[in-house]
């Protein structure tokens, strides 16, 4: 271990000492309440459901009893039963594929695409939003006007027009959803940015001679992070609904790949025979989106940061 490392270590020890001392202040009677995330039991169940689906999305293909494209059932729209290939926990779909396995495979598709699109929306929205807030003037005006026009349209309409023009594939879906939902992220990021840019600490940093990049990195982004993170869940719900609606219309993920929205569409005909093959994937979407909404509700009810909610 060389000299500089040692110094760094000592520095860290000192830092921990200070933190330990600070912690003691919490025991004083009038200490400010700790910013700790405490969820109600509803919130805890909801968190468990979301984590469950995330895990399924990652390990799904390894644990699913069948492949998403295996046609192992001897007939379509079977109820749950066993045959020589194995057990169909939730029955089979219109091509005799195992519904249970397809839901597990579909989790990766639906959640993966939605997460990718939401991250893209955040990347575009935050970059442009903070840029507009910091730069102001002409740049702000022009980005904001285009943004207003996108917000003035129903997202499904924009999606339909875009798919009519470009066709449908997974990258195109991610890009379309990312751009459409970037508009609402932009609005929040810009509002937060404008708010932070007039604070005293930003003024102080300016007087100190810090550059624009330093201010954005060290003052604006950390202060905007928490409200934007709360909003992430809501945005993800909208994107999941958007993507699965497009898949349901036959314009999103194309068969034979399993996706919750397109699974509902494929198996609609089975409803008349009282088959639940169309209902299970719909339940999967519902459980995921309701759970996220409950978590967001729980967090914003506990913390004062309801800005994101107000701006939806």
């Amino acid at each position, binding site marked *: 271990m060389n000299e500089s490392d040692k110094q760094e270590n000592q520095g860290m020890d000192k830092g921990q000492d200070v933190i330990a001392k600070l912690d003691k202040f919490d025991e004083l009677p009038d200490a400010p309440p700790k910013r700790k995330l405490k969820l109600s039991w509803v919130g805890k169940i909801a968190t468990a459901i979301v984590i469950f689906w995330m895990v399924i999305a990652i390990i799904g293909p390894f644990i699913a009893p069948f492949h998403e494209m295996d046609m192992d059932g001897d007939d379509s729209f079977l109820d749950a039963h066993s045959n020589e290939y194995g057990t169909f926990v939730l029955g089979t779909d219109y091509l005799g594929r195992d519904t249970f396995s397809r839901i597990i495979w579909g989790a990766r598709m639906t959640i993966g695409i939605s997460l990718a699109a939401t991250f893209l929306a955040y990347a575009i929205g935050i970059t442009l939003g903070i840029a507009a807030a910091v730069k102001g003037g002409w740049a702000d005006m022009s980005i904001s006007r285009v943004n207003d026009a*996108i917000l003035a349209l129903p997202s*499904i*309409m924009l999606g*339909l*027009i875009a798919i009519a023009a470009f066709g449908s594939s997974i990258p195109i879906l991610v890009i379309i959803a990312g751009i459409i939902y970037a508009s609402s992220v932009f609005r929040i990021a810009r509002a937060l940015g404008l708010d932070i840019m007039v604070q005293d600490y930003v003024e102080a940093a300016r007087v100190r001679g810090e550059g624009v990049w330093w201010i954005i990195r060290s003052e604006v982004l950390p202060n905007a992070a928490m409200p934007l993170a709360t909003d992430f869940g809501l945005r993800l719900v909208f994107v999941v609904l958007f993507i699965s*609606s497009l898949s349901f219309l036959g314009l999103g993920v194309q068969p034979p790949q399993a996706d919750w929205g397109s699974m509902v569409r494929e198996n609609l005909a089975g409803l008349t025979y009282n088959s639940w093959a169309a209902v299970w994937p*719909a*339940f999967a979407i519902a459980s995921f989106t309701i759970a*996220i909404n409950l978590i967001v*509700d729980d967090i914003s009810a506990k913390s004062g940061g309801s800005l994101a909610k107000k701006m939806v």
Partner: protein
Amino acid sequence: MMLNMVLRRIWIGLATMVVVSVIVFIMTSILPGDVAQIVLGQSATPETLAALRAELGLDQPAYIRYFLWLGDMATGDLGTSKAGGAAISDLIGGRFGNTMLMAGLVAAISIPISVILGLWAAMHPGTWLDRTVTFGTLATISVPEFFIATLMVLILAVNLHLLPSTALLRDDMTFFELLRGLAMPIITLVIVVSAQMIRMTRAGILNVMNSPYIEMAILKGVPRQRIIVRHALFNAIGPIINVIALNLAYLVSGVVIVETIFAYPGLAKLMIDGVQTRDLPLVQACAMIFCGTYVILILIADVGSIVSNPRLRHPK
């Protein structure tokens, strides 16, 4: 003063429509590339390509094409469909009426239900009734429209045999038959649209309940129900009108799903078919109609909230 503000909103609405038309035009006419090439395929000779481009007006610069297109739209010439070559205005004609019929019925049913339930929940905050309504509506707005539609089909049509599982629409139907034929799509849409309206009505009234004059009334000893009906409701009318118009605008996207799932011969179904066959002129026309309706409803919401709020009517 008020007239000025309303006129300003109308101008903003018109400007939005222009921007919307530019977006639709860019996305459907410029980004997809050369339509002549797509129509004729790779093996077309340069001469036939040039001839078709001239015929379609593609040899003109983009902005001139935009204004020609906008002029045609404004005069009711929506172009011809790529599939079959029928005039789009003929295709749209009856479909538009069907969609309006359904939207009108949904609005007529869902508005009274939502205002009453929203009021009721706001009158009894924290009770089991309020909590049921709050959770139920949250659950409804978090799930896709087709989830509710499939559940309704499974329960009402397949298990209880109460209603037909697809929409039925004929010219010679009596009013009762019509209601029964349209019941499934209407019930689905009413549930979807009401959920949001109930939540927003409840929130609007609870918001008004925080104001000082309500506190005064409470301190005076006026019963809660009376406060809500006499004091809070009138001040919440502006926000509620706003909520109603906004949610009828959300109806636009609900209609897309519901018409598809119940095979209802409306405008949205026509548009989805157009998207599937990539019939761009048809998609353009339908998109402009839907977006226009949407912008008009938002405009009504804005004007409604100005007219109903004295502070907005007489700005300082």
